[in-house]
């Protein structure tokens, strides 16, 4: 079960050697992978919000255009 949880977080099949781990251990790894993925995603999301807001006023239009006008 936890093998599936890890595969889901990874978006790929975990290496065969990880089958030596218990369900609880695989579950712990899946949680850590999920947390680290969120850490990366949140950092990028926060930066998107900040960059346009904090770019020098005359350049804001250019920055917004390059970022795809999403902000």
């Amino acid at each position, binding site marked *: 079960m936890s093998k599936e949880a890890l595969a889901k977080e990874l978006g790929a099949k975990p*290496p065969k050697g990880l089958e030596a781990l218990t369900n609880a251990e695989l579950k712990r790894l899946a949680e850590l992978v999920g947390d*680290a*993925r969120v850490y990366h995603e949140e950092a990028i999301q926060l930066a998107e919000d*900040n*960059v346009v807001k*904090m*770019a020098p006023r005359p350049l804001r239009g250019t920055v917004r255009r390059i970022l795809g006008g999403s902000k």
Partner: protein
Amino acid sequence: MSEVLEARAEVIKLARLLHTEPSEIAFAEKAGSDSLREFRDQLVELFYGNDSGVERFAKIGNLLPSSIIASLTKEAVGPVLAARIAGLIEPKNAVAVVSKLSIPFVTDISVELDPRRVEPVIGALPPETLAGICKELIKRKEFVAMGGFVGFVDEDTLASVFKDATDSELLQIGFVTEDTARLAIAISQLSDERLGSIIRAAGHEGYWPEALDLLRNTSDDGYFRLIDIASAQDKRVQDELVAASQRDGLWPIVIPAVAQMTDPSKTIDALLRSDAKVFKGFADAVAADKAWVDAGELIAKLSDQQRAQFRERLAKSERVKAFAPVAELLAAK
């Protein structure tokens, strides 16, 4: 060569990638080093592989003046995204931005870099900036990131960084260094006094796996130099080495090393005064690995008194039969 050490080093690298302590995921060692390396590659791809959201930022990085980028990087972008962008923008632009940022902030970025993109970013930085980053990394105990840098820092800078690092810091960096050839060169440039100090630190501070890993990753000359320096250390260090060999499963590295010491008598004495479990562990490791060439070489270097004690310990451990392949050598006067 040593699966135990490779798996342990992989766990340390994985822990850094997962923002946890190695002890929290020590259970993963049993997956084996190959699977752990593959798992780490999967994680790097998961965290760093999708550039679609980052490329837009990189475009800004290539268009705006470096002073504005530097200020935006620090105030708005933050180290995680900056590290992603750094791998995508022109190295010369990255260098121009970095030169306008403080060393602590550049270090924040360094620990978040995609391990596969360290070279283009780091390799282009001036030596003094690199030395500053390396020293800051070590101060923060970011040994995995430092280990990833070793291959891209010039020899002089690395020598100066290693000179300032403590013995245990150096051992921890060496253990997770990717470019072991560069590490071997840096180690070969250390003085005998420093290597002796490193070996004593391994014993006193519990870093034998890391120290023995240096043996694994050094040139032949470096190997013989290290084992002879180890063989000259005092009784306490020898006892610590023998105890750690049993505790940490390091016999497969220690046995050939002791056999090839010019004068292994001090280490042998430590083995001969070790408790029953340790001696049995040594004997079983020799038999399991069929390390008879090493055992033969070792026995040939024993004094008559040591050889008699060795036979006695084998008898007490009920391992005489197991040592039949070297019985003749053991019987020799």
